[in-house]
């Protein structure tokens, strides 16, 4: 598979989850495990351009796939506009759920540069944040839209 542009090959037990593979085998620990049953969204990664929950996928399902994780967002020390927007709008507190949120927002903004409020809500609706109460995350998405447009 290719993760953040880098090719990886490994033998895995069939039962290995994708998130365990990313974190344990590849050492990409930015993707977090929150509930292990697909509800909270903390483990969200891009799988061939689609946001998926890596805790309820098997590593073998990603054979040959193109993956993107939070580590693939920034360009060296330069934060991605989405990351920048989350920072500016205080769209995170403990930050544990944040990589998952940002990956879903990334997918949304890859599909459309002018998301409706409903699309934003539905994108964020698949994620649980226990700290922020979502308001600052919504604001961060609006700022990210603006930043992506003027990039």
């Amino acid at each position: 598979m290719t993760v953040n542009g880098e090719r990886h090959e490994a033998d895995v037990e069939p039962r290995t989850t994708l998130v365990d593979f990313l974190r344990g085998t590849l050492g990409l620990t930015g993707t977090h495990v929150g509930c292990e049953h697909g509800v909270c969204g903390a483990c969200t990664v891009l799988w061939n351009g689609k946001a998926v929950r890596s805790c309820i996928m098997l590593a073998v399902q990603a054979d040959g796939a193109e993956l993107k994780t939070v580590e693939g967002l920034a360009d060296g020390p330069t934060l991605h506009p989405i990351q920048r927007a989350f920072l500016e709008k205080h769209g995170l507190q403990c930050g544990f759920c944040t990589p998952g949120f940002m990956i879903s927002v990334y997918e949304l903004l890859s599909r459309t540069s002018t998301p409706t409020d409903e699309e934003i809500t539905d994108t964020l609706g698949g994620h649980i944040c226990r700290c922020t109460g979502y308001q600052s995350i919504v604001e961060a998405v609006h700022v990210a839209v603006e930043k992506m447009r003027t990039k």
Partner: protein
Amino acid sequence: MSERDTGIPTSVAELPNSEPRYVGRPIDRLEDPALLTGRTQFIDDLVLPRMLHCAILRSPHAHATIVSVDTSEAEKLPGVVAVVTGEDAKRWSNPVMTVPPGWGTHCLATDKARFVGEPVAAVAAVSRYVAEDALELIAVEYEPLPAVADARKALDVGSPLVFEQNGDNVMLRKLFTWGDVDGAFAGATHVVQREFRWNRLGANPLETFGVVSQWDELEGTLTCRGSFQAQHHFAMARAMVFNLPLNKVRFIAHPHGGSFGGKGGARGTDITALLSRKAGGRPVKWIEDRMEYLAGGASQAWDRHYDAAVALDAQGKVLGFRVRLLDDLGATAEGWGAVSAAKPLTSFTGCYAIPAAQYDLTIVATNKLPGSPYRGMGPPPHNWVLEQLMDLAARELALDPAEIRRRNFIPPDAFPYTIASGNEYDSGDYAAALETALAMADYPALRAEQARLRAEGRYLGIGLVNTIEPGVFDWNAYAIVGQPGTGVPEGATVGIDLFGKLTIKVGFALEGQGQYTVAAQVLADWFKVDIADVRVIALDTLAAPPHFGPGGSRLGVAITGAVLGAARRLTDKLVAVAAGLFRTTPEHVELRDGRIGVKGMPEASMPFQEVAQTMLARSDLLPPGVDPNPEATYVWTAPGRTPADDQGRAKSYLTAANACHLVLVEVDVETAQVHIRKYWIADDCGTRLNPANVEGQTQGGVAQGVGAALLEEAVYDEDGQLRTSTFMDYLLPTIYEVPMTEKRALCTPSPFTPLGAKGCGEGAMHTTPAAILCAINDALVPLGLELREVPASPQRLWTLLQQGKAARR
């Protein structure tokens, strides 16, 4: 003692800087770049050489004698290195201390299991997958016992006993009477009395608890790395559990993915320590999974039955307040959950000048998960009860809910004000918060809209609630459950390096509230440097200055005090050196706008960095007796706190923030769904050191309050089986449920605290559940119904609506 005696500024104007750039402004957080790029090292990201992974076998029974545990097959599984049971725990450790005392067990069940999810055995293996495989090979023979999962039944004679040796299930029973309560009720023209039920719910941070423990038999030391809140506190407890000197226990807290009160994880830490010992000192990691968290972690709090009443005169003035609380703490008192029954003493009578009050408290054990702290620690359900009674009283007296509150507020000129239960409020203007919220919402227009829609058969409700947020935690209020103590230290070490940059060393890990940024803001403004020139680092329990860390809306104020105190001490050192260099005496030298020089002589000054560099590079030039290290430590403790008297009265939490929440809901009487339509907040937590942090804490508290009010509930059946062990059935609020709120800040600075700030971490959790339930009940008035149980789930509300329909038929 006041802050003035310590030289710590109580207002921003007192900083040695004519143009502070950071304090009071919404500064971007220093914590964020690492979090946003996935580089922050949470505990599960840590890999140590030869590290093993732990999985824990848990009791499927709520109450059962453990006849035998056979681990021989598990031990044979390739990859398994160590297996531990209750026998190992008995051999190598003590039961944990509890509050109240005498209700604790070892980290693994020995004689019997007391709740579903209690650890019975554990495995350390080369991977978590193998460790979980091994659990299936452990044979435990149980003899199930009758269980008790209801607090009222636990009081019955003949109830199953959770701890037989204690004779009954009553962990604590106490009655406190403050003032002439009987007289107040006897002389009242109105008495409003109701029963209320608050069901169990809990913290549920997105990151569960995790730990890596390492036992060194040669040195006799234990090192634990983990997502610890209050690392030093847990190190002390481990020293007692394992009979180790405290200097041989080292705790290293990693950043946590949220805590909200529950990141201590005593059992997991102790189990991994035992496994490491048995595995010859290899580090053992345990990451709690979500089902373990929900069934056996710090996931449950506040399982309460209330019977409460207010007595009023004809004008709606509250004369007395009575609360009888039956608190179900679950199987043990290990989780510090009992302190949440004590914390209401810090704000028993809320925002109101109620002269007499009574607290009749019973805490019982049942065969359920032990209760743990959760954001707010007890006042949230208490406030809910008090505010419902205020609304009911208003209805009985035909007063507007706003008016009855106005008539009872502690007036702004009465501060500092000591409430009936003994705590002192520092400052506030409650009417101002109320009027602000009413104006924001255009309250008269809302009421008109409510009346108009009511005529159309739609049920809108308005909830209007004022509460106190006791801030800056200490132990004094907890004396009534057997937890003595005055003061909680928070230390900071501030130093200047040879290149002139500043470092703050603290004893707590990131948890999300942004306190590293606050510490850096304060120090940057003290020395008038760019915030980028300040770095904050966390040290472990053996290296850090005395500390407690986050908890009880405390750390923002406490770390500000610690940093300012250390900066003051460091400045005194610099002044002494500069006085020598300028050939004058220290009283003629001062720090002003980043320069140290002779007072009134701007030309006789130098940047503070140069003084520090002289200390580091040319200590031979210094005046005699000067410590040449440009570093200082200060340990801050809330000033003026008092231990509790025999009635539990103490000057306890230092600050009393307050807020008014006004919420508009619509109840769909067909589906029993509650829709939050609008939400306004007027909030006063004194000086806002970083307003963005405060707003985030407020909004996050609203979200958790919405969960408490409408969704979250740990459900047990009557046999003590947990029915909510996943996020499919324990419902956390998502963006669809949490309203975007309109907030306005008010400010009555605390006269007692550094820079006038008040604790603000838990505020909205104190207010939101009460506000939403007041709104729901306001909506139900035309139906003659009252919902007196949380959460107001659709099922619960639907049942009530059906009962109402049946009664009207």
